[in-house]
């Protein structure tokens, strides 16, 4: 009913290959953009910006990045935190060592540094597969943890190893207020989503998916695994690296190597799995879900007026979080993106289910 494709005829290949071939999808996206750029800034409080919207957006960017690698190319990585760290520290070093550079360019350079590291650590993926690779990516995680806390050059010889940065300034605009930071992140997310979406529906993305589904078969039909896997690592770590720079500069403002530890890697992987493997929108949904769930669980007893100790709350939070993950995997292994898709299907048929 609401979601009907009837009457929408594609008269050219170009129209058929559009990102959103269905008219209603375009409306949906437009509504979301409208909400993101107009409604949210008007309604949200400072806390919501700082604790909800900004982290969710940055994490969505990271999750999309990891999804390119895990969901599209099938290479499981537990090292996203490391790529974020590389992005953050590289951006920091570009910024303090070449002060005349525009901060946004520093972010991108941070992303590029993550790309370089990603390609280097992607090389084992040519030989190692599956969980062996997943565990091997942890090598990078622990290595970066160590590097950034032990090699003082990266932290500009700060004695404590903790870095503090000032709000960034681009073309005279200082991004200090939450709402400006929010816009900055949102613009990044929109641009990278467009790039990501177009990569995965192009030649590279198809090569990735072929590799994911069966790398031997992909090789036989002429896809070079070296090229496919390393490009996936490169693009994915670029996304994650930029997200890392944003996370550090825009969200945290001051950080230490522990900010990018293995827990962060796991939560990004959770976002990808819960959101939906191999789906761009899944990355966003997953990021929102995983970021908000603990906040929600944490606040729930307060809202309900139940008086239990904070220790109990956070233990329960652990338990519910774990249980929900199992539940989601059991109910909908394809993630939130799949639920979204089912909803669309339902809307298409409603109110006549047959």
């Amino acid at each position, binding site marked *: 009913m609401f979601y009907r494709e009837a009457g929408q005829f594609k008269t050219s290949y170009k129209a058929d290959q559009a990102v959103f071939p269905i008219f209603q999808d375009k409306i949906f996206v437009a509504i979301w953009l409208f909400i993101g750029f107009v409604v949210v800034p008007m309604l949200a409080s*400072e*806390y919501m910006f*700082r*604790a909800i919207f900004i982290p969710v957006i940055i994490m969505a960017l990271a999750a999309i990045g990891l999804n390119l690698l895990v969901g599209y190319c099938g290479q499981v990585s537990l090292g996203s935190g490391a790529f974020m760290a590389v992005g953050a520290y590289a951006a920091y070093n570009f910024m303090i060592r070449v002060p005349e550079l525009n901060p946004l360019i520093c972010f991108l350079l941070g992303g590029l540094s993550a790309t370089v590291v990603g390609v280097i650590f992607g090389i084992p993926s040519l030989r190692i597969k599956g969980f062996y690779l997943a565990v091997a990516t942890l090598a990078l995680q622990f290595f970066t943890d*160590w590097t950034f*806390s*032990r090699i003082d050059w990266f932290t500009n010889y700060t*004695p*404590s*190893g*903790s870095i*503090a940065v*000032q709000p960034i300034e681009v073309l005279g605009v200082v991004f*200090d207020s939450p709402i400006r930071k929010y816009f900055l992140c949102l613009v990044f997310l929109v641009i990278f989503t467009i790039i990501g979406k177009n990569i995965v529906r192009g030649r590279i993305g198809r090569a990735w998916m072929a590799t994911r589904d069966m790398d031997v078969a992909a090789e036989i039909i002429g896809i070079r695994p070296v090229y496919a896997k390393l490009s996936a690592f490169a693009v994915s770590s670029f996304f994650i690296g930029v997200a890392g720079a944003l996370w550090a500069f825009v969200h*945290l*403002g*001051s*950080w*230490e190597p*522990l*900010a990018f*530890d293995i*827990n962060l890697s796991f939560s990004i992987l959770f976002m990808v799995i819960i959101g939906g493997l191999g789906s761009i929108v899944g990355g966003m949904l997953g990021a929102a879900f995983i970021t908000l769930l603990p*906040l929600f669980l*944490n606040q729930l007893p307060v809202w309900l007026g139940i*008086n*239990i*100790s*904070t*220790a*109990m*709350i*956070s*233990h*329960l939070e*652990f*338990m*519910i979080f774990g*249980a929900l993950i*199992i*539940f989601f995997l*059991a*109910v909908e292994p394809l993630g939130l993106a799949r639920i979204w898709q089912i909803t669309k299907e339902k809307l298409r048929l409603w109110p006549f289910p047959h």
Partner: protein
Amino acid sequence: MNHSLLFRALLICVPLAIGGCGQDSGTDTGTSTGNQSNAEGVIVDVSDPNAQFVPVLSYRTGAYAPNGTPVANGFTDYLKLINARDGGINGVKISFEECETGYSTSRSIECYERLKGQGPTGAAVFNPMSTGATFAITEKAPVDKIPLITMGYGRSESRNGGVFPWNFPIYGTYWTAADILITHLGNINGGLNNLKGKKIALVYHDSPFGKEPIPLLEKRASMLGFELLSIPVTHPGVEQKSAWTMIRKEQPDYVLLWGWGVMNSTAIKEATGVRYPRDQMYGIWWAGSEPDVRPAAADAVGYQAISMVSSGQAQVHKDILSYLYDKGLGSGEREGVGEVLYNVAIINAALVVESIRTAQSKYGDKPLTGEEVRWGIENLDITEETIEKLGLTGYMYPLSLSCSDHEGKRAARLHRWNGESWEYSTDWITADDSVIQPMVRSASDTYAKEAGIPTNACDS
């Protein structure tokens, strides 16, 4: 199909709920706050328009829970006591909300953001309870105009109020602590000059907390001619075999232990394993409490640590027991009242309360803003009479702050674990400020330059 899914959900969730609820009464680990009628007037709702809101960042879970829990208990017990015994600070009740950080910096920031605007006037003062979190919140506090009390932790150079008007590392920074330990080593060797040629190892938690003393120790090493050996221990510190094998190889004359949480007890056990004498080991004040030595039991005897306060019970503890624990309103367990970290937290909370009281003398007896409380902290003047009135005689030392010195006093005692309790083993030792002061100046100037802030907040 859908029904079976729902059923599955129930299957997962029901035992969960039972497990969660059934627990509270079943074991002695729950810290339930007792029944509602007793709690009246003691636990004040955050939304109360006449109450002063004090945020509490705590960690009762995760790797650092054994140490975080007594701190949180002591802190909240004291706030409750003020409400129960005195009816608040000059009649202004204290409301508080705990936020669980798990000792993680990013979670601490989230807690900070959530709590800073609560209550009628916003947060009075934050106690981040973690050095990493202090570094992060230091950047945010001036914007939000909320002061930070970082008692015995945080940024060492932040005692310079000219650059860090919002930071208050009262009771000593890590540079102070490190210098006191070196001074003590000098004392037992018959003078600092006799440390020449000695070898001192620093076994530290690999985080901003553990790295903080290194600049001072390095400077002291070059001044006095001892050799400093820095050995990092990766978070959370359960893997220290190689660190102690290294110590066995190098045989340093002394080991300084800069640990937190399970790292401390592990270190003492590993020291036993390599037969390193415990009486040559000295801990930071965060490595000198019951959870640190109890798991190591008899092996820890002779181990000393610098101490802000040792264990024991003063008048205030009796009040806490009679006003709170006898009525089932205590935050933790009875046995925990009077432990080292509990007492540290009591002093911390007392500093918060006295700061608010001082601020009230200027701004009136009503809930105050962070900016007003900041004035109260900076003009804090704790005398022997105040301490007597607080019921903390012998547990707290007199101190007064000024804009240029947010630390107060640079002295501490050492205490030693005798197998059953901690007891003071030295007299007061004062740090040499002629060593620390130039470092504070240069570090805070560097910070001010990078952050583009003035260094003369005191002059205005």
